[in-house]
């Protein structure tokens, strides 16, 4: 009896399900960043709004990268429902704190996929995930640096205006 299941698809059912959950998570991230861009724009933080527009675009690209991988491997990529996007924030600082939390939870869920891949020796998917681990280094770095600006610059006086100006200049260029 032929192994038809394997011939049709490289991914195990479990890994396929986990990646589909990740697709949803990236789509959710993209929407959250868009909502953050809206909030920043409405409150006069133009540079931060731009920063979040770019992040929203990046998350969309991450979503598509996972999506195409599942299809390329013969699996079924599921276009996700995205609901419950928070639209209001209590403060400028809260926006960045939640952005950092979001990135941390993304890193964690990709680690979870990798753990499953290790378990079933799916080195093909593991190698694919490496790109995302590198990306998360940058994502967490940038989000953490942004939150730190609130302590380094301080919010008093023209502080928030200064913070906004610096957010656009955060970049990660480690070659390591």
């Amino acid at each position, binding site marked *: *009896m*032929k192994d038809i299941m394997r*011939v*049709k698809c490289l991914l195990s059912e479990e890994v396929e399900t986990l990646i589909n959950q990740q697709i949803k998570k990236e789509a959710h991230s993209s929407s959250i960043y868009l909502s953050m861009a809206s909030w920043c724009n409405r409150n006069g933080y133009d540079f931060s709004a731009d920063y979040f527009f770019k992040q929203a675009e990046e998350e969309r690209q991450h979503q598509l990268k996972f999506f195409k991988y599942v299809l390329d491997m013969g699996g*079924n990529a599921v276009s996700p429902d995205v609901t419950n996007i928070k639209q209001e924030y209590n403060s400028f600082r809260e926006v960045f704190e939640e952005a950092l939390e979001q990135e941390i939870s993304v890193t964690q869920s990709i680690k979870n996929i990798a753990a499953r891949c290790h378990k079933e020796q799916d080195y093909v998917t593991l190698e694919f995930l490496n790109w995302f681990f590198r990306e998360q280094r940058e994502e967490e770095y940038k989000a953490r640096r942004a939150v730190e600006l609130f302590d380094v610059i301080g919010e008093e006086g023209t502080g928030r205006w200064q913070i906004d100006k610096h957010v656009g200049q955060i970049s990660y260029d480690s070659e390591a």
Partner: protein
Amino acid sequence: MQKTKELSFPVASFEEVFATNSGAIFQSDSEKCWYIDFAGKLARFDYRNLLKLKKAIYNVNIEEKLLSSDKTADVEIIFICACDHSYVLSLLELIKLKELLQGTFVMLDLNHIIYDRLFRVIS
């Protein structure tokens, strides 16, 4: 797994993947598909449709249906998009089909492991 050969059609060879008292699932290597003998009919499922059927059956909350005191009919309609077959099943039949599918997927997994270990690895 027992090989059943049809005398009149020597090309089509089926292998029984799993069987219970209420039905059986066969695999056809040449057609790359499965035949489900259940509820009085023999239905052909390709790879995508077999997975869709599995999902549809596994997603029914049997426990909830057993405990429900609704006066609605005790029947589940299993309809699969772009598939020629659908099932109208009583709760008992649903449980039996699920059992049949579970056994089938265990056997397919086992077959996959055997292929990986015996035929795909240079020893």
